[in-house]
């Protein structure tokens, strides 16, 4: 269960939430609070835009020679360019089938990182439209946008510390499900968050007693078949990962070591 926190407690973590560095239980508690608090929503919005402003201060830098050509080649506006390409940029040609090639690209049209930006912008847009006479419906819509934003922000492939575990549950009435990740000896070793609205996403935090190296995250379908959805590195047993989780129904997740050994499982039924 998420803990119901007040504005004071939320204020302690609002900046971390806005910067996308809040994880696990704290994140879930903060999200639950945001669903019902316009004032904190506004605070997070301002902190988020402040964080974006901070990035705007970063110094510019000259990319390597040939960068422009390689970018254009990458999006189909030039023939393939060798890397590193040196010398003058090659003149671009008209893209006969640029749109076709874009649309035929496989996989998710929206990467996790873009979802963050998009969701944040959706949040901003929602808030700009929100009048002073905030209706319950509008508040729910804005809260939903922020939930999407912060959940999406969590799904970028962290190498972070784990979080406290808890039984499988839905967070409030949101499409966010979470479940305890347990080891073969039935010890809680982490947590899985599974977001089911629209494109599906998952976020896993792991806190094993020890272990370094790459581990694989797999999702279990209704028929018991496991599908690999991503991998990440553990450092001293700690780590986390987030990313797209396919489109089909999911009943569970597991963490597998590089040697194929199942390290932990979670039920999302």
């Amino acid at each position: 269960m998420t803990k119901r926190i007040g504005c004071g407690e939320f204020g302690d973590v609002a900046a971390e939430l806005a910067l996308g560095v809040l994880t696990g239980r704290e994140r879930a508690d903060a999200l639950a609070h945001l669903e019902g608090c316009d004032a904190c929503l506004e605070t997070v919005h301002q902190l988020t835009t402040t964080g974006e402003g901070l990035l705007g201060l970063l110094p510019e830098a000259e990319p390597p020679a040939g960068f422009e050509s390689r970018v254009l080649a990458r999006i189909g506006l030039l023939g393939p360019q060798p890397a590193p390409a040196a010398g003058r940029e090659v003149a671009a040609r008209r893209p006969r089938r640029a749109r076709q090639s874009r649309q035929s690209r496989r996989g998710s049209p929206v990467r996790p990182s873009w979802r963050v930006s998009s969701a944040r912008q959706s949040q901003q847009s929602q808030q700009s439209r929100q009048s002073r006479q905030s209706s319950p419906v509008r508040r729910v819509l804005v809260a939903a946008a922020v939930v999407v934003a912060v959940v999406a922000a969590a799904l970028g492939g962290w190498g972070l510390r784990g979080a406290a575990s808890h039984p499988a549950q839905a967070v409030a009435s949101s499409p966010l499900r979470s479940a305890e990740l347990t080891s073969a000896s039935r010890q809680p070793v982490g947590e899985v968050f599974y977001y089911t609205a629209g494109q599906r996403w998952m976020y896993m935090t792991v806190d094993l007693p020890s272990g370094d190296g790459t581990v694989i995250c797999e999702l279990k379908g209704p028929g018991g078949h496991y599908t690999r959805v991503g991998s990440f590195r553990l450092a001293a047993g700690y780590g986390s990962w987030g990313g797209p989780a396919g489109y089909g129904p999911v009943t569970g997740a597991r963490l597998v070591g590089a040697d194929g050994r199942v390290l932990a499982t979670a039920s999302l039924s």
Partner: protein
Amino acid sequence: MGIPADRLPDETLLAGLGAGDAEMAVAFVRRFQRLVYGVAVTVVRDPGVAEDIAQRAFEQAWRHAQVFDSRRGSVRAWLTTITHNLAIDVLRVRTSEPVDPAELPALLTAVTDTPEGFAVARDRASALRGELARLPAAQGRAVAMAGIYGMTARQVADAEGVPLGTAKTRIRIGMEKLRTVYHANDASPKDMGDD
């Protein structure tokens, strides 16, 4: 005679990029490549990796140009966020120590120095730059580690050798000071609500 592509507004170039117009795409890349590469190389500090990130950022801009909404922010901010998110993704996979605290003073000096030659020089950005420079050093480092390098409070605490609570407080207070300055001229700034 039409307006040269390199003099068109950012939004127009982005639309041209999304539509597959080669001339506008070239102008778009030329206009923003130093920004995009600068963000990437600052975060990952590896030129080769940074170039890949920067390429991917432009690719994402191309893919999603049609959903960009200028009412939600500038093209520059949008592209910066895309690039930063990609860089953080890479950083988190590559290392558990995104940045050495010893490297932070140089970065903070760079971002709080005079605006000339930097990404943004608007008033609000200048105010933010000034406030960042005025933060106590520990708060500035904590904000940079979390806001630029995507480090959690735990990672900040470990890197700085301080308790977790201290790291969280530094992030919170530092960001709150920056927020106050950055949103000082908003129409109706709100404080934290009551329970």
